[in-house]
């Protein structure tokens, strides 16, 4: 138990509450989309499966396909080839060069082929700058929409990253002040007074979820802030100090796999032999290949794998592109192992929860759900205790609108994706529009329904119905049926459908129950006594 003077406790309580409410609404959006984005790969496999499963990202034939497709692009795009698995087991090969965009910023421009690695038949070809290629990419649209909302709230760069970075810091402040304010943290870990008054029940549910979620909240908040600020603030700042503002030079120093320049023509060594070598060395399946200076004597091939069974920090295997010999195993930062490189490397599994496959992802989703729950219930408790004041009463309505309207808008966005996936409109744009339309409709509902509990039930009920309808919509617009998916070994399709149906029923079941209403006037003294009891 931490003993603090009463004035300090009050000040910390105020910081805890205000930081939570003011930034909590945006934080709630970031957390909810982050929870869904943990399963981005599975969501994409569900939304855009191929008719068959592809066990390996880079099966036999990748070497020939790389050479064949290289003949179909302008040789200037041989500067770099990026190869990676995408939705449904598709394989993307992006031939590109590093160039200056029309707005003066560095960018990548080229041609991307999307192929089915089972047949090596091209499924799509996209051209342009990185952003333009992303706009044309349909199969991974559902997860891309969620990730974009999670990472930058659809705010243009770099401002979106600033905002989400600040939100991460706010989450850390809320967690730390929560620890200091709640002085019986350990003693109350199992205290749930559910059978007594409604306020105590809500408070205890919030505190218990928050207490158990504390380590995870701190980890996610810190790593999230790191990712937001690393590229938007950290990189430019370091470049300013050490490279006179030249970010490209800094990136080269930190991440480059290039060898001394030699423009003489030379054939590329066999990629499949290098893949086999990586599999043997790292005991893990490759998931990313980068070929620099294809067709030249200074070519290098860099290969990453999924994290091996008991590792948390990834390595890049760098090969001589002409001989196929391993040059070095490169850490996430710099060219030799260091504590800094390990710390940067560990940020990824800590944030994405992907270090132990589905098991760790499931735990991360459970704890992320707890974080979303703590965020929402914290805002509801804070605003409802002050409902006698008009401003807080309005804020309470806004919290209900965002808290229960956001999941509804998120669930509705994929409907637009499925309905318009054959159109020319970018997948993210159609989902943005659907998201905004449903958000506007939810705002009208929130304005029209005076009783907040009824508003909660209506929005939850709508979310439940839309969740139940999503598998139907997917199949109705040409998606794989369960039997076909199961016989083809594509587990993501039925599993995600069943999860959606289960969550739909849970929403409908939750919407049935009317919450006990506690008048604001009655909540005040109870709240104070509760806080005093905790203190």
């Amino acid at each position, binding site marked *: 138990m931490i003993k603090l003077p009463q004035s300090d406790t009050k000040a910390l309580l105020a910081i805890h509450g205000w930081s939570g409410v003011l930034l909590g609404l945006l934080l709630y959006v970031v957390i909810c989309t982050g929870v869904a984005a943990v399963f981005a790969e599975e969501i994409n496999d569900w939304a855009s499966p191929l008719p068959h499963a592809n066990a390996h990202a880079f099966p036999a034939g990748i070497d020939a396909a790389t050479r064949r497709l290289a003949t179909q692009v302008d040789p200037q795009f041989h500067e770099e080839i990026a190869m990676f698995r995408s939705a449904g087991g598709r394989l993307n090969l992006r031939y590109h060069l590093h160039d200056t965009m029309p707005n003066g910023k560095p960018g990548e421009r080229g041609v991307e082929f999307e192929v089915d690695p089972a047949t090596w038949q091209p499924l799509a070809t996209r051209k342009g700058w990185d952003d333009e290629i992303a706009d044309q990419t349909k199969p991974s649209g559902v997860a891309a929409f969620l990730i974009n909302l999670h990472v930058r709230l659809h705010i243009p760069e770099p401002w979106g990253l600033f905002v989400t970075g600040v939100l991460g810091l706010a989450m850390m402040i809320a967690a730390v002040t929560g620890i200091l304010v709640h002085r019986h943290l*350990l*003693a*109350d*870990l*199992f*205290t*749930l*007074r*559910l*059978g*007594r008054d409604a306020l105590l029940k809500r408070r*205890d*549910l919030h505190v*218990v*979820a928050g207490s*158990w*979620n504390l*380590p*995870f909240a701190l980890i996610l908040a810190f790593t999230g802030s790191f990712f937001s600020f690393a590229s938007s603030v950290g990189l430019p700042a370091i470049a300013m100090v050490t490279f006179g503002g030249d970010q490209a030079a800094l990136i080269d120093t930190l991440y480059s796999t290039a060898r001394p320049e030699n423009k003489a023509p030379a054939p590329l060594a066999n990629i499949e032999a290098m893949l086999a070598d990586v599999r043997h060395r790292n005991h893990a399946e490759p998931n990313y290949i980068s070929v620099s200076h294809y067709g030249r004597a200074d070519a290098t091939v860099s290969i990453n794998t999924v994290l091996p*069974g*008991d*590792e*948390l920090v990834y390595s890049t295997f760098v090969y001589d592109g002409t001989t196929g010999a391993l040059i070095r195993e490169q850490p996430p930062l710099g060219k030799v192992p260091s504590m800094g490189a390990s710390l940067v490397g*560990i940020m990824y*599994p*800590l944030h994405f*929860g992907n*270090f*132990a496959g589905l*098991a*760790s992802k499931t*735990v*991360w989703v*459970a*704890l992320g759900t*707890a974080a979303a729950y703590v965020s929402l219930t914290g805002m509801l408790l804070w605003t409802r205790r002050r409902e006698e004041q008009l401003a807080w009463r309005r804020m309470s309505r806004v919290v209900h609108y965002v808290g229960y309207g956001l999941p509804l808008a998120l669930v509705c966005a994929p409907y637009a994706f499925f309905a318009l996936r054959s159109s020319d409109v970018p997948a993210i744009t159609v989902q943005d529009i659907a998201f905004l339309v449903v958000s506007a409709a939810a705002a009208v509902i929130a304005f029209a329904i005076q009783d907040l509990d009824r508003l909660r039930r209506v929005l939850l009920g709508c979310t439940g119905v839309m969740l139940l309808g999503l598998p139907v919509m997917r199949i109705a617009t040409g998606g794989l049926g369960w039997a076909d998916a199961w016989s083809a070994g594509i587990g993501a399709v039925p599993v995600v459908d069943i999860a959606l149906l289960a969550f739909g029923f849970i929403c409908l079941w939750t919407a049935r129950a009317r919450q006990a209403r506690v008048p604001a006037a009655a909540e005040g003294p109870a709240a104070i006594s509760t806080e005093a009891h905790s203190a």
Partner: protein
Amino acid sequence: MTVAALLAIAVSGALLVALGARDPKRLRSSRHGANDARAASPPLPSAVRQAFGWLSLAPGIVLALLGEWWAFLIWLGAITAIGWTIAITAGYSSVSVSHRSRS
């Protein structure tokens, strides 16, 4: 390594179940309003609770000291999820016990 993580989770999880089921504050709360004093189990003595609390952390500490960070993370994620589940399950079961006692 997976075995070490699962073993650590099993040990910590079992201790958390005991701590949650026999938590004095929760039991006191569930007895509130109940007519039947036998409605819930007796709470764990304070010394035993403290011992169980520290012991539940021990597997994680051992994994960290051994530098098994992969297993440590699995353990940390799992016990926080398990702890939250136990708290909610125990809380709702207390309500039903209390209601049964009153009826």
